[in-house]
């Protein structure tokens, strides 16, 4: 412990998952996440009481996750863009059945087959449901390999704590990049006992049923409203963000993941030119850090949202700002990454 290891983002997720007790992985190869599935194969196929299956499809993979999660096992799948779209029906089922699991999306550029370069175009899909029906995932957005490690571990705890699927939403750059990481010993977290609902065979108890439907609208409304109450609790308790250089900032950048990293360099470069800008970096995309944005907007700051998309998170920023001040947007798409110079140029436009 305490030792730093040089690791690729995708592999760091895998190692962190295994250390968090994930013993089951079901997945299908897709760039730019393939190192993760390869890492899980290498490790889990040699472990006792563990399983790795390269599934016939993304759909099968998420349904294998559904099965394993119903037994209470810590389980994960990963994919990118088109593969995550294919998993959406299954994610909707996992959500209504309240089965804990971790789904990793190493975003590539879309729509369609798009390309394999980094992008952030799956924000809506991840944070607004993605599949059919009325549900939410907990969505974590790391912006360094160390954070990939830390949040992967936390994702399993959050999934178990709320009996809810958790998505790690990173992009191809984070998946492919190498950095020194440390696997820290975590204090033991108290998590709810799973015995009351898991499918383990009904020896000595009444059978358990995990069913993703109720044909009675009165009963199903109650069910979905209970989910809604859970999401409110998550919003109250689990918001995470980083806010830097907020004092007297002339403009606040809002960015997550890879873009937030670039924004940090922009802040330093701007300082040298005598320009003081701040950064709000959402770490949880759902729940979204509305309060810090709303309270910052009270002080009439200009906001610049930068994303690798046509503008998706910017909508949540605008909802939080509620028209109190201006929210500008700058985005790159197609797998292009905004440069420091571009972002600084945009900043200067609004000062």
């Amino acid at each position, binding site marked *: 412990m305490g030792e730093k290891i040089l690791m690729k983002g995708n592999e760091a997720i895998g190692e962190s998952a295994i250390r968090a007790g994930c013993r*089951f992985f*079901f997945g299908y190869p897709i760039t730019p996440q393939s190192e993760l599935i390869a890492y899980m194969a290498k490790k889990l196929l040699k472990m006792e009481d563990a*399983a790795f*299956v390269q*599934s*016939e*499809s993304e*759909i*099968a*993979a998420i*349904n*294998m*996750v*559904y*099965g*394993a*999660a*119903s*037994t209470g*096992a810590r*389980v994960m799948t990963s994919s990118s863009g088109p593969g995550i779209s294919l998993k959406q*029906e*299954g994610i909707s*089922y996992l959500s209504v*059945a309240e089965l804990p699991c971790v789904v990793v999306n190493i975003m590539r550029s879309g729509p369609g087959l798009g390309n394999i370069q980094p992008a952030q175009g799956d924000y809506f899909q991840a944070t607004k449901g993605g599949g059919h029906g009325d549900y939410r995932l907990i969505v974590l957005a790391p912006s360094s390999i160390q954070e990939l490690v830390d949040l992967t571990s936390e994702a399993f705890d959050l999934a178990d704590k709320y009996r809810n699927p958790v998505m790690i939403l990173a992009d191809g750059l984070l998946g492919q990049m190498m950095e020194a990481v440390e696997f820290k010993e975590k204090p033991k977290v108290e998590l709810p006992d799973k015995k009351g609902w898991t*499918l*383990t*065979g*009904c*020896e*000595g108890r009444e*059978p*358990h*049923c*995990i*069913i*993703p*439907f109720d044909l009675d609208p009165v009963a199903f409304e109650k069910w979905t409203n209970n989910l809604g109450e859970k999401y409110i609790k998550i919003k109250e308790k689990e918001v995470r963000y980083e806010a830097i250089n907020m004092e007297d900032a002339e403009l606040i950048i809002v960015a997550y993941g890879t873009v937030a990293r670039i924004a940090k360099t922009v802040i330093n470069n701007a300082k040298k030119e005598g320009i003081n800008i701040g950064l709000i970096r959402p770490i949880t995309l759902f729940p979204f850090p509305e309060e810090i944005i709303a309270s910052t907007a009270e002080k009439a700051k200009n906001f610049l949202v930068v994303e690798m998309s046509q503008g998706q998170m910017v909508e949540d920023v605008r909802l939080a700002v509620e028209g109190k001040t201006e929210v500008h947007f700058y985005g790159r798409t197609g797998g292009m990454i905004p440069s420091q110079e571009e972002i600084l140029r945009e900043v200067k436009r609004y000062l």
Partner: protein
Amino acid sequence: MKKVFGRPEALTDVPFTYCPGCHHGIANRLIAEVIDELGIREKTIGVCPVGCSVYAYLFFKCDMLGASHGRAPAAATGIKRARPNSVVFTYQGDGDVAAIGTAEIVHAANRGENITAIFINNAIYGMTGGQMAPTTLIGQVTQTSPYGRDEKTMGYPIKMAEMLSTLKRATYISRVALNKTANIVKAKKSIKKAFQTQLEGKGFSLVEILSACPTNWGLSPVEASKWVEEKMIPYYPLGEFRVPEEVE
């Protein structure tokens, strides 16, 4: 007085919701009897996906998972991999096994997943009100083959048992029917063999059960059982296509 006949322990006391003359009820009962006879109720986990099988969770007195349409073999794979000592079975219809979930059943069989699939083939989509299934016979009229199934545009009915039996890791594959007592007795034996294959850790097993759907066929229960005999069995021959000995 000695009790000579009763409800299997592996069935709940919820009355079946199946239509009059439907063979699902017989199939459910046979599975429950086999579970009882093997003494595995407390370690069995059933997976029921979408279709008339959707309510099976109400009837089996063991742990049950409701899966999405076609994906029961994938969900069962997840359960079995996480709990290799549990007995895992799926209860699927023809839309599930032979249409939307073809990939899942083929690959579960090909991997030799140590699970048991019970496949109800009634040549029609029952739950949605009588549309064409991949197993609908040539000329058979359904809501979506209103002029009869035409092989030129709709293909031939898929013989899943035969198709799956080409896979090396599919250990026990059979087709049975429930249209008369002799066939019911054979069906139960076959279902038992399928579960035993799993209990002995020998790999994937599937029992295709030819079943009547009087409601959607527009026949009386008696006529429907006759239809199984006269129309279905000639096209879908009964028997064992793979047995464990052959695999070893």
